[in-house]
């Protein structure tokens, strides 16, 4: 899908530009006799048999299939008990448009340069706003963010000044595509390192998008043999800016401000807090009640003021527990 300005040459003479959606004409026939391509479902499929699996694929989809197996290196990860995190960064174009409109309206309403503009003119400015140029700039900056993440991920050092990730432990399986990566997870620190880097870069590149951002990061953490469809299902529907799941353990969706708050208040090395959170987790499992957990936090507010503070700032007990569960794992190899 392509968005374009109609009568682009009139840009300098009129600000009332027309914006429309344009789609490629694929010249699809009005009907296809069976069999239809199993993959794209838009062309005639031909029978292909591999490893006793019979499929009907069109030439285009088959050519793509023959391009190779991008996850070859990942398939070689066979350490016992090893966990891997599948990382997907996504730009939600629909939300981007809403964000751009919102920020532009805020600019028109509140920026000092707009002080002498009448409210009628402000209205005209808002109505005539066309976001395409800003959208393009945003996407350019988004690509820079992805590049910066790729560049800096291998520079993160542990306490012994050794890099946490190498090109063997943090893979970008598809060449020149930096929205998708897979990395080995030995401890919660590995996860936090990636999240820290992402949140710092988001703050640097898009400081206005920390609470409501069209850029979203999702991490799905499981044993290396975990079915990829399950990972993909989670990665393809990000609900918040930072989304993490470890199937059957915890699932968390928070924004960057909440992440920074949790990062600041929940110290993994604090043994007492750690024990208390474990206890809260047990209570939650046994009682299946948030209320009981909340009462426990209130009873212990003097010992653990951070927890009460977090709940007062809008984080739910569930989110605190999930954050702790997802990042508590210790390095065991």
């Amino acid at each position, binding site marked *: 899908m392509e968005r374009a300005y*109609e009568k682009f040459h009139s840009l300098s003479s009129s600000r009332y530009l027309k914006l*429309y959606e344009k789609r490629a004409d694929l010249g699809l026939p*009005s*009907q296809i006799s069976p069999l239809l391509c199993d993959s794209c*479902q*838009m062309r005639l499929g031909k029978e292909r048999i591999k490893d006793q699996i019979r499929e009907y694929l069109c030439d285009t989809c088959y050519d793509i299939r023959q391009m190779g197996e991008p996850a070859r290196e990942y398939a070689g990860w066979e350490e016992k008990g090893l966990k891997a995190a599948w990382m997907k960064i996504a730009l939600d174009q629909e939300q981007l448009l809403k964000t751009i409109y919102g920020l532009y309206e805020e600019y028109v309403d509140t920026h000092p340069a707009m002080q002498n503009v009448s409210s009628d003119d402000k209205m005209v400015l808002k109505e005539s706003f066309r976001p395409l140029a800003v959208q393009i700039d945003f996407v350019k900056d988004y690509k820079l963010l992805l590049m910066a993440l790729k560049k800096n991920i291998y520079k993160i050092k542990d306490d012994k000044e050794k890099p946490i990730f190498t090109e063997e432990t943090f893979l970008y399986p598809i060449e020149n595509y930096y929205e998708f990566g897979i990395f080995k997870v030995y401890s919660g620190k590995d996860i936090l390192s990636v999240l820290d880097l992402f949140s710092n870069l988001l703050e640097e590149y898009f400081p206005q998008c920390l609470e409501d951002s069209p850029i979203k990061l999702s991490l799905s953490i499981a044993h290396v043999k975990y*079915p990829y469809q399950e990972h993909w299902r989670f990665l393809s529907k990000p609900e918040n800016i930072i989304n993490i799941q470890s199937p059957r353990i915890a699932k968390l969706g928070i924004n960057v401000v909440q992440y920074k708050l949790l990062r600041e208040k929940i110290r993994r090395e604090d043994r007492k807090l750690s024990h208390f959170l474990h206890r809260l987790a047990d209570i939650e499992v046994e009682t299946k009640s948030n209320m009981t957990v909340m009462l426990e936090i209130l009873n212990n507010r003097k010992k653990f003021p951070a927890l009460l503070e977090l709940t007062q700032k809008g984080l739910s007990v569930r989110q605190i527990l999930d954050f702790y569960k997802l990042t508590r794992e210790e390095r065991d190899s």
Partner: protein
Amino acid sequence: MKNKTFLHFELKTRALAIGERIKGGTFRPCIETIPTSTLKGSFRDHFGLEDVLAIGFLRESTYQKDIFTYAPFDAFLGTAKLPISLEYLKPANGTKAVEADIYVVKNEAVKLLAKDAPTEISLGALKSKGFGRCELRYIGEIKPNLKVGYLKGRLLEDECSAFGIIKVIKPCYGYLFYPTSEVSGVYKRALFEGSIIEGPEILIKGEYKYDS
């Protein structure tokens, strides 16, 4: 053009698998809308009505996806085939049923459907495993206004005018199966989710903000 009249039904089910085609021989995803072709077959089977024009939209937040794995049986060879993982829709946490709105274009033939008592119909795949048993309840007649926006369902291109679509601004094509006899059929070009149309507002999700 006069606005079309539709019969509005509510559909409830415990499990629904309206499938895409099987991928890689082992995985069959399911779609999150009810195309006209699926409803046409179901209404023909249950009510003996030919050429019913109906389209369905699942109510968001009433469903979630899950996986059902089974090994299909090859009756000819008497052996089990490779296991297939099928995606299906089940009620979302905290809800009792997957819910959908079904809109049937009103004409003389479908008037008998408009009765108060709920009816049971079957939809989608895995009927032998208990999937797709649906309760269909008539809600009422509606005459929606026209609107420009993004189509939220799937319907054959030939059916556009019958559904009251007066203009297809930008099509988003796919193919739906169209039976030509008891045992054969063809895939006909259809409008899929995201097509920009001018038509009844019940078919539209999200207004088209750009210039047409």
